[in-house]
Protein backbone atom coordinates (compact mmCIF):
# COMPACT_ATOMS: atom_id res chain seq x y z
CA UNK A 1 0.00 0.00 0.00
CA UNK A 2 1.30 3.39 -0.92
CA UNK A 3 1.55 6.14 1.65
CA UNK A 4 -0.51 9.24 0.86
CA UNK A 5 1.85 12.20 1.25
CA UNK A 6 -0.17 14.92 -0.40
CA UNK A 7 -3.84 15.55 -0.98
CA UNK A 8 -6.33 18.29 -1.35
CA UNK A 9 -6.99 19.72 2.13
CA UNK A 10 -10.20 19.03 3.98
CA UNK A 11 -12.48 22.04 3.71
CA UNK A 12 -12.26 22.17 -0.04
CA UNK A 13 -15.11 20.38 -1.76
CA UNK A 14 -14.21 16.95 -2.87
CA UNK A 15 -14.02 16.94 -6.63
CA UNK A 16 -14.70 20.66 -6.92
CA UNK A 17 -13.18 22.21 -9.98
CA UNK A 18 -11.78 25.61 -9.22
CA UNK A 19 -12.97 28.54 -11.25
CA UNK A 20 -9.68 30.36 -10.76
CA UNK A 21 -7.53 30.87 -13.85
CA UNK A 22 -4.50 28.63 -14.32
CA UNK A 23 -1.60 29.94 -12.28
CA UNK A 24 -3.73 32.23 -10.11
CA UNK A 25 -2.53 32.40 -6.55
CA UNK A 26 -6.09 32.37 -5.17
CA UNK A 27 -5.94 28.56 -5.33
CA UNK A 28 -2.88 28.50 -3.10
CA UNK A 29 -4.42 30.97 -0.66
CA UNK A 30 -7.60 28.90 -0.38
CA UNK A 31 -5.50 25.82 0.24
CA UNK A 32 -3.46 27.54 2.95
CA UNK A 33 -6.62 28.76 4.69
CA UNK A 34 -8.14 25.27 4.73
CA UNK A 35 -4.95 23.62 5.90
CA UNK A 36 -4.65 26.04 8.79
CA UNK A 37 -8.32 25.72 9.77
CA UNK A 38 -7.91 21.94 9.70
CA UNK A 39 -4.79 22.12 11.82
CA UNK A 40 -6.55 24.35 14.35
CA UNK A 41 -9.57 22.04 14.42
CA UNK A 42 -11.76 24.93 13.22
CA UNK A 43 -12.95 23.70 9.83
CA UNK A 44 -16.33 22.79 11.22
CA UNK A 45 -16.59 25.99 13.20
CA UNK A 46 -15.67 28.45 10.46
CA UNK A 47 -17.84 30.84 8.57
CA UNK A 48 -16.46 33.08 5.91
CA UNK A 49 -17.80 36.28 4.42
CA UNK A 50 -17.18 36.37 0.75
CA UNK A 51 -16.31 39.50 -1.16
CA UNK A 52 -17.28 40.20 -4.74
CA UNK A 53 -14.86 39.59 -7.56
CA UNK A 54 -12.56 36.63 -8.19
CA UNK A 55 -12.59 35.98 -4.43
CA UNK A 56 -16.27 35.14 -4.85
CA UNK A 57 -15.34 32.04 -6.83
CA UNK A 58 -14.28 30.52 -3.53
CA UNK A 59 -17.95 29.75 -2.88
CA UNK A 60 -17.67 26.72 -5.15
CA UNK A 61 -14.48 25.73 -3.40
CA UNK A 62 -14.79 26.23 0.38
CA UNK A 63 -16.91 23.63 2.15
CA UNK A 64 -17.88 26.05 4.92
CA UNK A 65 -20.81 28.18 5.97
CA UNK A 66 -20.78 31.18 3.70
CA UNK A 67 -22.25 34.66 3.89
CA UNK A 68 -22.00 36.52 0.62
CA UNK A 69 -21.43 40.25 0.98
CA UNK A 70 -22.38 42.99 -1.45
CA UNK A 71 -19.45 44.68 -3.15
CA UNK A 72 -17.03 45.87 -0.48
CA UNK A 73 -19.24 45.21 2.55
CA UNK A 74 -17.59 42.05 3.85
CA UNK A 75 -16.05 43.75 6.89
CA UNK A 76 -19.39 45.30 7.92
CA UNK A 77 -21.11 41.93 7.66
CA UNK A 78 -18.31 40.08 9.43
CA UNK A 79 -18.48 42.67 12.23
CA UNK A 80 -22.12 42.04 13.05
CA UNK A 81 -21.96 38.32 12.36
CA UNK A 82 -19.03 37.79 14.70
CA UNK A 83 -20.60 39.91 17.44
CA UNK A 84 -23.79 37.86 17.20
CA UNK A 85 -21.87 34.59 16.92
CA UNK A 86 -18.69 35.08 18.94
CA UNK A 87 -18.01 31.34 19.17
CA UNK A 88 -17.71 31.00 15.37
CA UNK A 89 -14.38 31.56 13.63
CA UNK A 90 -15.10 34.28 11.08
CA UNK A 91 -12.96 35.51 8.22
CA UNK A 92 -13.53 37.61 5.15
CA UNK A 93 -12.06 36.73 1.78
CA UNK A 94 -11.61 39.81 -0.35
CA UNK A 95 -9.69 41.21 -3.27
CA UNK A 96 -8.15 44.65 -3.66
CA UNK A 97 -10.99 46.35 -5.51
CA UNK A 98 -13.48 45.00 -3.01
CA UNK A 99 -11.48 45.73 0.14
CA UNK A 100 -9.50 48.86 -0.73
CA UNK A 101 -11.83 50.76 -3.09
CA UNK A 102 -15.54 50.16 -2.72
CA UNK A 103 -15.08 48.67 0.76
CA UNK A 104 -12.43 51.00 2.12
CA UNK A 105 -14.73 52.58 4.71
CA UNK A 106 -15.96 49.19 5.93
CA UNK A 107 -12.40 47.84 6.12
CA UNK A 108 -10.92 50.77 7.99
CA UNK A 109 -13.90 51.13 10.33
CA UNK A 110 -14.04 47.45 11.30
CA UNK A 111 -10.29 47.55 11.92
CA UNK A 112 -10.63 50.73 13.95
CA UNK A 113 -13.31 49.13 16.11
CA UNK A 114 -10.97 46.20 16.65
CA UNK A 115 -13.62 43.72 15.52
CA UNK A 116 -12.54 40.21 16.42
CA UNK A 117 -12.39 38.57 13.02
CA UNK A 118 -9.76 37.92 10.38
CA UNK A 119 -9.41 39.48 6.96
CA UNK A 120 -7.70 37.53 4.20
CA UNK A 121 -6.90 40.11 1.57
CA UNK A 122 -5.72 38.94 -1.84
CA UNK A 123 -3.98 41.82 -3.59
CA UNK A 124 -3.16 41.34 -7.25
CA UNK A 125 -3.25 45.00 -8.16
CA UNK A 126 -6.13 44.76 -10.61
CA UNK A 127 -9.86 44.11 -10.96
CA UNK A 128 -9.64 40.56 -12.26
CA UNK A 129 -13.17 39.33 -12.73
CA UNK A 130 -14.40 42.46 -14.50
CA UNK A 131 -11.59 42.27 -17.02
CA UNK A 132 -8.52 44.11 -15.80
CA UNK A 133 -9.39 47.62 -14.65
CA UNK A 134 -7.22 49.78 -12.39
CA UNK A 135 -7.38 48.96 -8.68
CA UNK A 136 -6.26 51.15 -5.76
CA UNK A 137 -3.20 48.88 -5.58
CA UNK A 138 -2.24 49.08 -9.27
CA UNK A 139 1.37 50.12 -9.68
CA UNK A 140 2.31 53.47 -11.20
CA UNK A 141 2.79 53.17 -14.92
CA UNK A 142 0.84 49.94 -15.13
CA UNK A 143 -1.47 49.69 -18.13
CA UNK A 144 -4.95 48.46 -17.36
CA UNK A 145 -8.17 48.69 -19.34
CA UNK A 146 -9.03 51.94 -17.55
CA UNK A 147 -5.47 53.29 -17.53
CA UNK A 148 -4.61 52.55 -21.15
CA UNK A 149 -1.67 54.96 -20.97
CA UNK A 150 -0.48 53.68 -17.62
CA UNK A 151 -1.37 54.70 -14.09
CA UNK A 152 -0.40 58.33 -13.66
CA UNK A 153 0.11 59.58 -10.12
CA UNK A 154 -1.26 63.04 -10.91
CA UNK A 155 -4.43 61.64 -12.39
CA UNK A 156 -5.00 58.40 -10.52
CA UNK A 157 -3.01 58.74 -7.33
CA UNK A 158 -0.36 56.33 -6.16
CA UNK A 159 -0.94 52.71 -5.05
CA UNK A 160 -2.61 52.30 -1.67
CA UNK A 161 -0.83 50.23 0.92
CA UNK A 162 -3.45 48.68 3.11
CA UNK A 163 -1.16 47.14 5.75
CA UNK A 164 0.60 50.46 6.22
CA UNK A 165 -2.72 52.33 6.36
CA UNK A 166 -4.20 49.95 8.91
CA UNK A 167 -1.00 50.17 10.90
CA UNK A 168 -1.87 53.81 11.63
CA UNK A 169 -4.85 52.67 13.69
CA UNK A 170 -4.58 51.73 17.34
CA UNK A 171 -6.98 48.82 17.43
CA UNK A 172 -5.78 46.13 15.00
CA UNK A 173 -4.03 43.23 16.71
CA UNK A 174 -2.27 41.58 13.83
CA UNK A 175 -1.22 42.93 10.44
CA UNK A 176 1.00 41.07 7.99
CA UNK A 177 1.81 41.06 4.30
CA UNK A 178 2.82 37.73 2.79
CA UNK A 179 2.90 36.01 -0.57
CA UNK A 180 2.57 32.48 -1.86
CA UNK A 181 4.73 33.15 -4.89
CA UNK A 182 7.38 30.65 -3.80
CA UNK A 183 7.59 27.77 -1.35
CA UNK A 184 9.53 29.47 1.47
CA UNK A 185 7.17 32.44 1.35
CA UNK A 186 4.14 30.16 1.19
CA UNK A 187 5.32 28.57 4.42
CA UNK A 188 5.64 31.98 6.03
CA UNK A 189 2.21 32.88 4.71
CA UNK A 190 0.78 29.76 6.28
CA UNK A 191 2.32 30.73 9.62
CA UNK A 192 0.84 34.23 9.30
CA UNK A 193 -2.66 32.93 8.56
CA UNK A 194 -2.38 30.57 11.51
CA UNK A 195 -1.29 33.40 13.76
CA UNK A 196 -4.17 35.58 12.58
CA UNK A 197 -6.75 32.87 13.31
CA UNK A 198 -5.15 32.17 16.66
CA UNK A 199 -5.38 35.85 17.54
CA UNK A 200 -9.08 35.70 16.78
CA UNK A 201 -9.57 32.52 18.81
CA UNK A 202 -7.82 34.24 21.70
CA UNK A 203 -10.15 37.23 21.33
CA UNK A 204 -7.34 39.66 20.59
CA UNK A 205 -9.24 41.55 17.93
CA UNK A 206 -8.82 42.50 14.29
CA UNK A 207 -6.31 40.44 12.32
CA UNK A 208 -5.34 41.14 8.73
CA UNK A 209 -3.26 39.10 6.31
CA UNK A 210 -2.53 40.53 2.89
CA UNK A 211 -1.37 38.16 0.17
CA UNK A 212 0.57 39.81 -2.61
CA UNK A 213 -0.91 37.88 -5.48
CA UNK A 214 -0.84 37.68 -9.24
CA UNK A 215 -3.18 37.84 -12.20
CA UNK A 216 -1.61 36.10 -15.17
CA UNK A 217 -4.73 36.56 -17.25
CA UNK A 218 -5.13 40.31 -16.92
CA UNK A 219 -1.43 41.04 -16.57
CA UNK A 220 -1.00 39.29 -19.94
CA UNK A 221 1.69 36.98 -18.61
CA UNK A 222 2.28 33.28 -18.26
CA UNK A 223 1.90 32.00 -14.71
CA UNK A 224 5.65 31.76 -14.29
CA UNK A 225 6.23 35.22 -15.73
CA UNK A 226 3.63 36.58 -13.32
CA UNK A 227 5.48 35.06 -10.37
CA UNK A 228 8.72 36.66 -11.58
CA UNK A 229 6.83 39.95 -11.84
CA UNK A 230 5.70 39.58 -8.25
CA UNK A 231 9.27 38.99 -7.09
CA UNK A 232 10.99 41.56 -9.26
CA UNK A 233 8.47 44.40 -9.29
CA UNK A 234 5.44 44.09 -7.05
CA UNK A 235 7.24 43.19 -3.84
CA UNK A 236 9.38 46.31 -4.19
CA UNK A 237 6.19 48.36 -3.94
CA UNK A 238 4.56 46.10 -1.37
CA UNK A 239 7.27 44.84 1.00
CA UNK A 240 6.49 41.68 2.94
CA UNK A 241 6.56 41.45 6.69
CA UNK A 242 4.72 41.47 9.94
CA UNK A 243 3.61 45.05 10.59
CA UNK A 244 2.03 44.38 13.93
CA UNK A 245 1.63 41.47 16.31
CA UNK A 246 0.14 42.63 19.59
Amino acid sequence: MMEKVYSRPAGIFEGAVTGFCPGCMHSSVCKIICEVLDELGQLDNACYVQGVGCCGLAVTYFDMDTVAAPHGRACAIASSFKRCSPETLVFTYQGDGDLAAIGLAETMSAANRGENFTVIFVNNGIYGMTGGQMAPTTLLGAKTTTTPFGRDEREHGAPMHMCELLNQLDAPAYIARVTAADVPNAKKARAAVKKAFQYQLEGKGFSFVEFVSNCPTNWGMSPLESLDHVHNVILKEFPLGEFRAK
Partner: protein
Amino acid sequence: MAEKIFMKGCEAVAETAVRAGCRFFAGYPITPQNDVPEYFARRMPEVNGVFIQGESEVASSNMAYGAAAAGVRSMTSSSSCGISLKSEAISWMAGANLPVVIANFQRGGPGIGTIQPAQQDYLQATHASGNGGFRMLVLSPMNLQEAVDMTWQAFELADKYSKPVMLLMDGFTGTMMEPVELPEPLSEEEVAAIRASKTWAARGKHGGPQHKVMCGPGLDTRISQEQMNERDAELYESWKTTEVEYEDYMTGDAEIVLTAYGITGRIAKSAVKLLRAEGIRAGLIRPKKVYPFPDAAYEKLPLEKLRGIVSAEMSIPAQFAEDVERVVHGRTRIVTALSSGGEVLDRAAILDAARSLMK
Protein backbone atom coordinates in the same frame (compact mmCIF):
# COMPACT_ATOMS: atom_id res chain seq x y z
CA MET B 1 -54.29 45.63 30.23
CA ALA B 2 -50.77 46.84 30.06
CA GLU B 3 -49.93 50.22 31.48
CA LYS B 4 -50.28 53.26 29.22
CA ILE B 5 -46.88 54.81 28.63
CA PHE B 6 -46.35 58.20 27.02
CA MET B 7 -43.62 57.58 24.49
CA LYS B 8 -41.92 59.07 21.49
CA GLY B 9 -42.51 57.17 18.24
CA CYS B 10 -38.86 56.30 17.60
CA GLU B 11 -38.48 54.98 21.14
CA ALA B 12 -41.75 53.05 21.07
CA VAL B 13 -40.58 51.26 17.93
CA ALA B 14 -37.15 50.53 19.40
CA GLU B 15 -38.52 49.27 22.72
CA THR B 16 -41.07 47.06 20.97
CA ALA B 17 -38.31 45.64 18.79
CA VAL B 18 -36.33 44.66 21.88
CA ARG B 19 -39.44 43.08 23.38
CA ALA B 20 -40.01 41.19 20.12
CA GLY B 21 -36.57 39.64 20.50
CA CYS B 22 -34.53 41.97 18.31
CA ARG B 23 -30.95 41.49 19.49
CA PHE B 24 -29.09 43.36 16.79
CA PHE B 25 -29.41 46.91 15.60
CA ALA B 26 -27.08 48.97 13.47
CA GLY B 27 -27.81 52.52 12.46
CA TYR B 28 -26.34 55.79 11.39
CA PRO B 29 -27.28 59.30 12.55
CA ILE B 30 -29.85 60.97 10.34
CA THR B 31 -32.71 63.27 11.34
CA PRO B 32 -35.54 62.62 12.20
CA GLN B 33 -34.83 59.08 13.49
CA ASN B 34 -31.82 59.60 15.77
CA ASP B 35 -33.80 58.52 18.79
CA VAL B 36 -33.87 54.99 17.38
CA PRO B 37 -30.12 54.26 17.39
CA GLU B 38 -29.73 56.27 20.61
CA TYR B 39 -32.37 54.13 22.30
CA PHE B 40 -30.82 50.87 21.14
CA ALA B 41 -27.39 52.07 22.28
CA ARG B 42 -28.75 52.36 25.83
CA ARG B 43 -31.05 49.35 25.72
CA MET B 44 -29.15 46.56 23.95
CA PRO B 45 -26.56 46.02 26.70
CA GLU B 46 -29.43 45.30 29.12
CA VAL B 47 -30.57 42.30 27.05
CA ASN B 48 -27.15 41.08 25.87
CA GLY B 49 -27.97 42.42 22.44
CA VAL B 50 -25.61 44.10 20.02
CA PHE B 51 -25.75 47.72 18.92
CA ILE B 52 -23.28 49.06 16.37
CA GLN B 53 -23.15 52.60 15.07
CA GLY B 54 -22.14 51.90 11.51
CA GLU B 55 -19.65 54.01 9.59
CA SER B 56 -22.38 54.67 7.03
CA GLU B 57 -25.95 53.83 6.14
CA VAL B 58 -24.55 51.32 3.71
CA ALA B 59 -22.48 49.61 6.38
CA SER B 60 -25.28 49.58 8.97
CA SER B 61 -27.75 47.89 6.67
CA ASN B 62 -25.12 45.34 5.72
CA MET B 63 -24.45 44.77 9.41
CA ALA B 64 -28.15 44.04 9.87
CA TYR B 65 -27.80 41.55 7.00
CA GLY B 66 -24.82 39.90 8.71
CA ALA B 67 -26.65 39.55 12.02
CA ALA B 68 -29.66 38.02 10.29
CA ALA B 69 -27.33 35.52 8.62
CA ALA B 70 -26.28 34.49 12.12
CA GLY B 71 -29.95 33.86 12.96
CA VAL B 72 -30.50 36.88 15.19
CA ARG B 73 -33.61 39.07 14.94
CA SER B 74 -32.10 42.12 13.35
CA MET B 75 -33.11 45.67 12.55
CA THR B 76 -31.90 48.90 11.02
CA SER B 77 -33.58 52.25 10.53
CA SER B 78 -33.06 55.46 8.66
CA SER B 79 -34.82 58.25 6.86
CA SER B 80 -35.42 58.64 3.13
CA CYS B 81 -32.05 59.48 1.57
CA GLY B 82 -30.49 57.13 4.11
CA ILE B 83 -32.87 54.39 3.03
CA SER B 84 -31.68 54.87 -0.54
CA LEU B 85 -28.18 54.05 0.68
CA LYS B 86 -29.52 51.03 2.53
CA SER B 87 -31.22 49.76 -0.59
CA GLU B 88 -28.11 47.82 -1.58
CA ALA B 89 -28.34 45.58 1.46
CA ILE B 90 -32.15 45.45 1.37
CA SER B 91 -31.97 43.96 -2.11
CA TRP B 92 -29.37 41.47 -0.90
CA MET B 93 -31.59 40.51 2.04
CA ALA B 94 -34.40 39.79 -0.39
CA GLY B 95 -32.03 37.80 -2.59
CA ALA B 96 -30.46 35.84 0.26
CA ASN B 97 -33.77 35.29 2.11
CA LEU B 98 -32.63 37.04 5.27
CA PRO B 99 -35.24 38.41 7.70
CA VAL B 100 -34.49 42.00 8.70
CA VAL B 101 -36.85 44.78 9.79
CA ILE B 102 -36.11 48.16 8.22
CA ALA B 103 -37.82 51.31 9.49
CA ASN B 104 -38.04 54.40 7.31
CA PHE B 105 -38.96 57.62 9.10
CA GLN B 106 -39.66 59.53 5.93
CA ARG B 107 -38.51 63.08 5.37
CA GLY B 108 -38.62 65.27 2.29
CA GLY B 109 -37.03 64.62 -1.05
CA PRO B 110 -35.82 64.03 -3.66
CA GLY B 111 -32.19 64.16 -2.64
CA ILE B 112 -31.53 65.52 0.82
CA GLY B 113 -34.98 67.14 1.07
CA THR B 114 -36.02 68.85 4.24
CA ILE B 115 -35.69 67.05 7.55
CA GLN B 116 -39.40 67.58 8.10
CA PRO B 117 -41.98 64.77 7.86
CA ALA B 118 -43.07 63.51 4.45
CA GLN B 119 -44.51 60.49 2.65
CA GLN B 120 -42.37 60.78 -0.42
CA ASP B 121 -40.86 57.28 -0.45
CA TYR B 122 -44.08 55.40 -1.21
CA LEU B 123 -43.12 54.14 -4.63
CA GLN B 124 -39.62 53.27 -3.48
CA ALA B 125 -40.95 51.27 -0.54
CA THR B 126 -43.71 49.44 -2.40
CA HIS B 127 -42.19 48.99 -5.83
CA ALA B 128 -38.41 49.18 -5.82
CA SER B 129 -36.40 49.43 -2.61
CA GLY B 130 -33.39 48.17 -4.51
CA ASN B 131 -32.37 46.41 -7.69
CA GLY B 132 -33.76 43.14 -8.91
CA GLY B 133 -37.53 43.57 -8.79
CA PHE B 134 -38.12 42.12 -5.33
CA ARG B 135 -41.10 43.08 -3.18
CA MET B 136 -41.35 43.66 0.54
CA LEU B 137 -44.20 43.62 2.99
CA VAL B 138 -44.59 47.30 3.91
CA LEU B 139 -46.45 48.22 7.10
CA SER B 140 -47.48 51.80 7.73
CA PRO B 141 -48.89 52.79 11.14
CA MET B 142 -51.18 55.78 11.59
CA ASN B 143 -50.47 56.26 15.28
CA LEU B 144 -48.01 55.09 17.87
CA GLN B 145 -50.07 52.18 19.14
CA GLU B 146 -50.12 50.84 15.61
CA ALA B 147 -46.40 51.55 15.36
CA VAL B 148 -45.89 49.33 18.39
CA ASP B 149 -48.18 46.59 17.11
CA MET B 150 -46.72 46.69 13.62
CA THR B 151 -43.13 46.59 14.88
CA TRP B 152 -43.94 43.33 16.63
CA GLN B 153 -45.78 42.08 13.56
CA ALA B 154 -42.87 43.06 11.29
CA PHE B 155 -40.47 40.74 13.14
CA GLU B 156 -42.99 37.90 12.97
CA LEU B 157 -43.54 38.41 9.24
CA ALA B 158 -39.83 38.76 8.49
CA ASP B 159 -39.19 35.40 10.15
CA LYS B 160 -42.27 33.79 8.66
CA TYR B 161 -41.18 34.51 5.11
CA SER B 162 -37.45 34.93 5.75
CA LYS B 163 -37.54 38.25 3.93
CA PRO B 164 -36.92 41.90 4.74
CA VAL B 165 -39.98 43.79 6.01
CA MET B 166 -40.34 47.55 6.04
CA LEU B 167 -42.00 49.80 8.58
CA LEU B 168 -42.93 52.86 6.55
CA MET B 169 -43.23 55.70 9.03
CA ASP B 170 -42.50 59.42 8.80
CA GLY B 171 -40.74 62.15 10.74
CA PHE B 172 -44.00 62.95 12.43
CA THR B 173 -44.76 59.50 13.86
CA GLY B 174 -41.08 59.21 14.78
CA THR B 175 -40.84 62.37 16.84
CA MET B 176 -44.34 62.78 18.23
CA MET B 177 -45.37 61.36 21.60
CA GLU B 178 -48.54 59.47 22.37
CA PRO B 179 -49.71 56.95 24.97
CA VAL B 180 -48.97 53.34 24.03
CA GLU B 181 -49.41 49.94 25.57
CA LEU B 182 -46.34 47.84 25.03
CA PRO B 183 -46.42 44.07 24.54
CA GLU B 184 -44.93 41.75 27.15
CA PRO B 185 -41.31 41.08 26.20
CA LEU B 186 -40.30 37.66 24.93
CA SER B 187 -38.29 35.77 27.53
CA GLU B 188 -34.62 35.06 26.90
CA GLU B 189 -35.58 31.41 26.40
CA GLU B 190 -38.10 32.37 23.72
CA VAL B 191 -35.57 34.61 22.01
CA ALA B 192 -33.03 31.78 22.03
CA ALA B 193 -35.61 29.33 20.71
CA ILE B 194 -36.43 31.60 17.76
CA ARG B 195 -32.75 31.75 16.88
CA ALA B 196 -32.32 28.01 17.30
CA SER B 197 -35.28 27.38 15.02
CA LYS B 198 -33.41 29.06 12.16
CA THR B 199 -31.54 25.95 11.14
CA TRP B 200 -30.53 27.65 7.91
CA ALA B 201 -28.45 30.27 9.76
CA ALA B 202 -24.67 30.21 9.47
CA ARG B 203 -22.68 29.18 12.52
CA GLY B 204 -20.11 26.73 11.16
CA LYS B 205 -20.92 23.26 9.85
CA HIS B 206 -20.54 21.46 13.18
CA GLY B 207 -20.84 18.04 11.64
CA GLY B 208 -23.75 19.01 9.42
CA PRO B 209 -23.81 17.39 6.02
CA GLN B 210 -24.39 20.55 4.02
CA HIS B 211 -22.71 23.88 4.50
CA LYS B 212 -25.02 26.87 4.49
CA VAL B 213 -24.75 29.66 2.00
CA MET B 214 -26.37 33.04 2.49
CA CYS B 215 -26.36 34.64 -0.89
CA GLY B 216 -28.56 35.76 -3.69
CA PRO B 217 -29.29 34.05 -6.96
CA GLY B 218 -26.35 33.83 -9.25
CA LEU B 219 -23.97 32.83 -6.50
CA ASP B 220 -26.06 29.97 -5.22
CA THR B 221 -25.14 26.77 -7.01
CA ARG B 222 -28.20 24.91 -5.73
CA ILE B 223 -30.85 26.97 -7.47
CA SER B 224 -30.89 28.93 -10.70
CA GLN B 225 -31.74 32.59 -10.72
CA GLU B 226 -34.89 31.89 -12.70
CA GLN B 227 -36.02 29.22 -10.25
CA MET B 228 -35.45 31.60 -7.40
CA ASN B 229 -37.23 34.49 -9.10
CA GLU B 230 -40.18 32.23 -9.87
CA ARG B 231 -40.32 31.03 -6.28
CA ASP B 232 -40.35 34.64 -5.05
CA ALA B 233 -42.94 35.65 -7.64
CA GLU B 234 -45.24 32.94 -6.25
CA LEU B 235 -44.65 34.21 -2.75
CA TYR B 236 -45.44 37.82 -3.70
CA GLU B 237 -48.57 36.63 -5.49
CA SER B 238 -49.68 34.69 -2.41
CA TRP B 239 -49.33 37.82 -0.28
CA LYS B 240 -52.16 39.38 -2.26
CA THR B 241 -54.52 36.95 -0.55
CA THR B 242 -52.76 36.29 2.75
CA GLU B 243 -51.19 39.59 3.74
CA VAL B 244 -53.61 42.32 2.70
CA GLU B 245 -54.48 44.53 5.66
CA TYR B 246 -56.56 47.67 5.73
CA GLU B 247 -59.13 49.57 7.75
CA ASP B 248 -62.59 50.09 6.30
CA TYR B 249 -64.26 52.89 8.26
CA MET B 250 -67.89 53.85 7.64
CA THR B 251 -67.89 53.13 3.91
CA GLY B 252 -71.19 51.20 4.13
CA ASP B 253 -73.41 54.11 3.15
CA ALA B 254 -70.68 56.40 1.92
CA GLU B 255 -71.07 58.71 -1.05
CA ILE B 256 -67.49 59.90 -0.72
CA VAL B 257 -64.55 57.73 0.28
CA LEU B 258 -61.37 59.19 1.72
CA THR B 259 -58.24 57.12 1.35
CA ALA B 260 -54.85 57.63 2.94
CA TYR B 261 -52.14 55.67 4.79
CA GLY B 262 -49.81 56.28 7.72
CA ILE B 263 -50.03 59.60 9.53
CA THR B 264 -52.31 60.97 6.82
CA GLY B 265 -54.65 58.04 7.48
CA ARG B 266 -55.45 59.24 10.98
CA ILE B 267 -56.01 62.78 9.78
CA ALA B 268 -58.37 61.51 7.07
CA LYS B 269 -60.14 59.34 9.62
CA SER B 270 -60.89 62.36 11.77
CA ALA B 271 -62.14 64.17 8.67
CA VAL B 272 -64.80 61.49 8.14
CA LYS B 273 -66.69 62.55 11.24
CA LEU B 274 -66.41 66.24 10.46
CA LEU B 275 -67.82 65.62 6.99
CA ARG B 276 -70.66 63.53 8.36
CA ALA B 277 -71.46 66.38 10.76
CA GLU B 278 -71.84 68.55 7.66
CA GLY B 279 -74.22 66.00 6.16
CA ILE B 280 -71.69 64.51 3.75
CA ARG B 281 -71.71 60.71 4.01
CA ALA B 282 -67.98 60.04 4.06
CA GLY B 283 -66.04 56.83 4.67
CA LEU B 284 -62.39 55.81 4.75
CA ILE B 285 -60.21 53.10 3.26
CA ARG B 286 -56.86 53.08 5.06
CA PRO B 287 -54.26 50.53 3.96
CA LYS B 288 -52.32 49.30 6.99
CA LYS B 289 -49.97 47.48 4.68
CA VAL B 290 -49.20 49.48 1.56
CA TYR B 291 -47.61 46.40 0.03
CA PRO B 292 -49.47 44.28 -0.87
CA PHE B 293 -51.89 47.02 -1.82
CA PRO B 294 -55.46 46.27 -0.71
CA ASP B 295 -57.10 46.21 -4.14
CA ALA B 296 -60.08 44.36 -2.66
CA ALA B 297 -60.89 47.22 -0.30
CA TYR B 298 -61.64 49.48 -3.27
CA GLU B 299 -63.09 46.74 -5.48
CA LYS B 300 -65.88 46.05 -3.03
CA LEU B 301 -66.98 49.70 -2.95
CA PRO B 302 -69.91 50.64 -5.20
CA LEU B 303 -67.46 52.67 -7.25
CA GLU B 304 -69.88 53.70 -10.00
CA LYS B 305 -72.30 55.08 -7.43
CA LEU B 306 -69.76 57.11 -5.44
CA ARG B 307 -69.41 60.83 -5.89
CA GLY B 308 -65.69 60.20 -5.78
CA ILE B 309 -62.58 59.35 -3.81
CA VAL B 310 -60.24 61.75 -2.03
CA SER B 311 -56.72 60.35 -2.01
CA ALA B 312 -54.57 62.15 0.57
CA GLU B 313 -50.82 61.93 1.16
CA MET B 314 -47.80 64.04 2.05
CA SER B 315 -46.21 63.81 -1.37
CA ILE B 316 -46.15 66.04 -4.41
CA PRO B 317 -46.47 64.62 -7.00
CA ALA B 318 -48.86 62.01 -5.62
CA GLN B 319 -47.55 58.45 -5.40
CA PHE B 320 -50.03 56.52 -3.28
CA ALA B 321 -52.81 57.89 -5.51
CA GLU B 322 -51.26 56.02 -8.45
CA ASP B 323 -52.11 52.72 -6.78
CA VAL B 324 -55.62 53.95 -6.01
CA GLU B 325 -56.07 55.00 -9.63
CA ARG B 326 -54.77 51.64 -10.85
CA VAL B 327 -57.50 49.82 -8.92
CA VAL B 328 -60.34 52.28 -9.47
CA HIS B 329 -59.50 52.47 -13.16
CA GLY B 330 -61.81 55.33 -14.06
CA ARG B 331 -64.91 53.97 -12.36
CA THR B 332 -65.23 57.06 -10.16
CA ARG B 333 -63.60 60.45 -9.79
CA ILE B 334 -60.41 60.70 -7.77
CA VAL B 335 -59.22 64.00 -6.38
CA THR B 336 -56.05 64.39 -4.36
CA ALA B 337 -55.23 66.32 -1.21
CA LEU B 338 -51.47 66.72 -1.06
CA SER B 339 -48.79 68.47 0.93
CA SER B 340 -45.03 68.63 0.80
CA GLY B 341 -42.10 70.64 2.07
CA GLY B 342 -42.38 69.38 5.61
CA GLU B 343 -45.94 70.43 6.28
CA VAL B 344 -48.16 67.78 7.74
CA LEU B 345 -51.24 67.59 5.59
CA ASP B 346 -53.84 69.99 6.94
CA ARG B 347 -57.17 68.34 7.57
CA ALA B 348 -58.81 71.35 5.92
CA ALA B 349 -57.27 70.29 2.60
CA ILE B 350 -58.98 66.90 2.86
CA LEU B 351 -62.28 68.50 3.86
CA ASP B 352 -62.11 70.94 0.95
CA ALA B 353 -61.33 68.16 -1.52
CA ALA B 354 -64.30 66.16 -0.24
CA ARG B 355 -66.62 69.17 -0.45
CA SER B 356 -65.49 69.78 -4.01
CA LEU B 357 -66.81 66.33 -4.95
CA MET B 358 -70.28 67.28 -3.68
CA LYS B 359 -70.62 70.01 -6.28
